[in-house]
């Protein structure tokens, strides 16, 4: 039957000639190939000391952003939780009290904000849904841990460090 793809190759099996049966030329060739690799630079990155650069559009750990005055941007609208296909995000909203204006930008804020990193698929839909530009997946990758409960990250791990005083 005629080949449609042009990829078919006819393979003949010929008996080995004397040099091929003697192994030695083939072994010499092999030794030359391995010797080439001997002088090649290793591709290893020694991880804890060196780190591989993330690509520009890498989506890693979430961070909750602050505005230019150091106030938390999140207003606990819940759009991120709604958009999340993995249902990894939960939050409890609270009302801003008098004297907390320097902490929260809007009148409503997230008292508790939790992301389950084992559920999260790092799709970035929360980032797109956020109307306040409060959440970004711009961190490093999520480190390993021993217990499932330790993968539920609260505000202590998610909120960006405060501006330097």
């Amino acid at each position, binding site marked *: 039957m005629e080949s449609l793809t042009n990829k078919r190759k006819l393979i003949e099996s010929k008996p080995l000639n004397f040099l091929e049966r003697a192994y030695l030329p083939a*072994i010499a060739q*092999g*030794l030359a*190939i*391995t*010797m080439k*690799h*001997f002088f*090649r*630079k*290793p*591709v*290893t990155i*020694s991880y804890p000391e060196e780190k591989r650069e993330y690509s520009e559009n890498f989506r890693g750990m979430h961070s909750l952003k602050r505005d230019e005055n150091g106030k938390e941007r999140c207003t606990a609208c819940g759009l991120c939780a709604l958009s999340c296909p993995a249902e990894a995000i939960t939050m409890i909203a609270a009302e801003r009290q008098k004297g907390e204006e320097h902490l929260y930008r809007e009148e409503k804020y997230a008292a508790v904000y939790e992301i389950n990193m084992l559920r999260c698929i790092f799709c970035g839909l929360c980032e797109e849904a956020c109307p306040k530009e409060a959440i970004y997946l711009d961190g490093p990758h999520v480190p390993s841990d021993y217990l499932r409960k330790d993968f539920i990250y609260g505000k202590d791990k998610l909120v960006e460090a405060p501006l330097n005083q």
Partner: protein
Amino acid sequence: MGVADIVIKFVLIVIIFAISLVIAMYSTYAERKIAAFFQDRVGPNRAGPWGILQPLADGGKMFLKEEIIPTNASPFLFIAGPSLAILTACIGSAVIPWGQQIIMGKYVIPLQVTDINVGILYIFGVVSLGVYGVMIGGWASNNKYSLLGAIRAASQNISYEISMGLSIIALLMVTGTLSLKEIAEQQHGWHWNVLYQPVGFLLFIICAFAETNRTPFDLPECETELVGGYHTEYSSMKLGFYLFAEYINMFISSAVMATLYWGGYNYPGMDWVLAHTGPVIGPLIGTAVMFAKVFLFIFFFMWVRWTIPRFRYDQLMDLGWKILIPLAIANIIVTGLWITFIK
């Protein structure tokens, strides 16, 4: 033989013993490092600078591991196996000439433990004893895999010892002596035996690979078929002894190859160097040359290990009996004709 001679011999024995153990130790490190370089990796680099303390860490691990003797194993033979393996590996170095004699004042120090006139036969005897360690250990473990590995080791060693012996016969026809010291001295300068016996050397190195159970002839311990081969049931330092014996064997067979075929401690221009550096430094330079050759051979062993895949068992036997032995016999005949008509 005075007290001074005995002290000199004793010190020499201790030094050679220590050197062969240290070289075996660092062969494990070199093997892992070289394997890594051949595979574009970095290799062990955590213990000390460049991982130089890795063998010590490995040794410490081996010593501290739990020692297991299987219930149905024969306890005496189970322990005798690795002991015999390491013993036979260590005594091979006794007849190898490491250098010319050093003359220090009135003392003459030969850099060879003993120059017996049947040096090569001694080496062969020790090598063929070596297989008993493997066989006894594999048999005493009372395990199918160990037994298969031991059987393979025994049949492989016996098959390849024949062609090894035949390749040596051609060499002996050229040298006319069995003493390793005399063979080394005959190769003064650049008159290395490999120039007169290239085929013999090729046969010898192939057989050396088989005798030391190195890839491509590492069937006795091939992980893919036999779990661990003859040392499947071994743990702790008894396993360490087996692995160690393999590396010492590699070192000794490299030294034997360097002595028999590659001129031992001889190098071109050695007379000039000897005349200019005196009777102490000069021979030591020769010893350094000898060790350089040995290290090259050890490197070659490792280089081949990471290049060639393992032989199938029937291919191994085919190669040994149908190719190497006829080739060795042909080599003897050609050497005989050459000695009779040309030399």
